[in-house]
């Protein structure tokens, strides 16, 4: 019966997808909470072993909301530019 097959397919899809999603969230919860970037975990760590340490950037926005605001602006401007140029590219004329 086609209906029965369809229901079976949907059940199979759920039986596959739901455990996969749960597993994905579980794996994320196992990882270190700080989610270090590879610059800290690799570059700066190995550089420090060889006597080189990172210095403050020229324009130092610190680690607070100012830098968050900078990323907000950067994300907004980049996303807007990408959308704007994509629209220009896919315009019919």
């Amino acid at each position: 019966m086609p209906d029965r097959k369809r229901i079976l397919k949907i059940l199979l899809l759920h039986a596959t997808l739901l455990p996969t999603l749960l597993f994905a969230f579980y794996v994320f919860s196992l990882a270190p909470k700080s989610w270090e970037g590879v610059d800290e975990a690799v570059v700066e760590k190995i550089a420090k072993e060889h006597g080189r340490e990172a210095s403050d950037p020229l324009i130092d926005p610190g680690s607070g909301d100012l830098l968050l605001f900078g990323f907000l602006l950067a994300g907004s401007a980049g996303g807007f530019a990408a959308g704007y140029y994509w629209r220009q590219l896919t315009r019919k004329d």
Partner: protein
Amino acid sequence: MRWKHSKGCNAAAAPPSPCGRGAGDGCRGGLVKAGGASLAAGSLLLVATPAFAMHISEGILPFSWGVFWYLALLPFLFLAIRRLNAMAREDLSMKPLVGLLAAVVFIVSCMPIPVPTAGTCSHPCGTGVAAILVGPLVSVLIAAVSLLIQALFLAHGGLSTLGANTFSMGVVGSLAGWLAFRAARRMGGSLAVSGFLAGLLADWGTYAATSLILSLGIRGDAPLWPLFTKVVLAFLPTQLPLGILEGVLSAGMVTLLYRKRPDLLLRMRVITDKELPSNA
């Protein structure tokens, strides 16, 4: 450099739907959608969770090596500006494509993606797809501008290491991606498979170059190759899966552009006349 950043880290800007000539409302709708996409990108970048930048940070490389990588980069930048001017003279319609790729490379290269198997974050480069679509030279320029803005305003990388970071991501990443794409196409690879390989090798090439640049800069009297191997092995758990992700992104972008604007791909010699869809 510590900064607050997104945990989800997925800031792909959904493009607005295309609007036809004279479709004023549709165009305004497109702009609204573009604005919405940008806000979504911004908000996704900014769910506050501690994370870190990924390029070689300010001050890590000695001054002499910083200057060396600037000098090594200069000829590529000079050729890139010439190539971009030539492209703009030949065909004005390439400008939106360059603008789109610049935005994509900028967003993608400051977007940390968590890798659960490694417990760290890193980012794709985007230079592979840029090299396929506008050529490796223009891709170098795009990477340089993106990294300059990030170094100046986002504490991402640094001005003293800008030459080194641009050399690895712009020059090596672009060339690796472009060569991989051309080789795969010559061997009969489809657009998607070739795009995937280009993204994969651009990412891995970038981090191999970063490893070499870092090892050369910090080794002092230590032997080079053991240190290089150590850095590469430390990058592997994060960059192996991210390279695959970058391959998928590159393949997706190339095939999407093939569906929407195959004529552009033909002009950039990404596809041949025979591969043009019949309705193009």
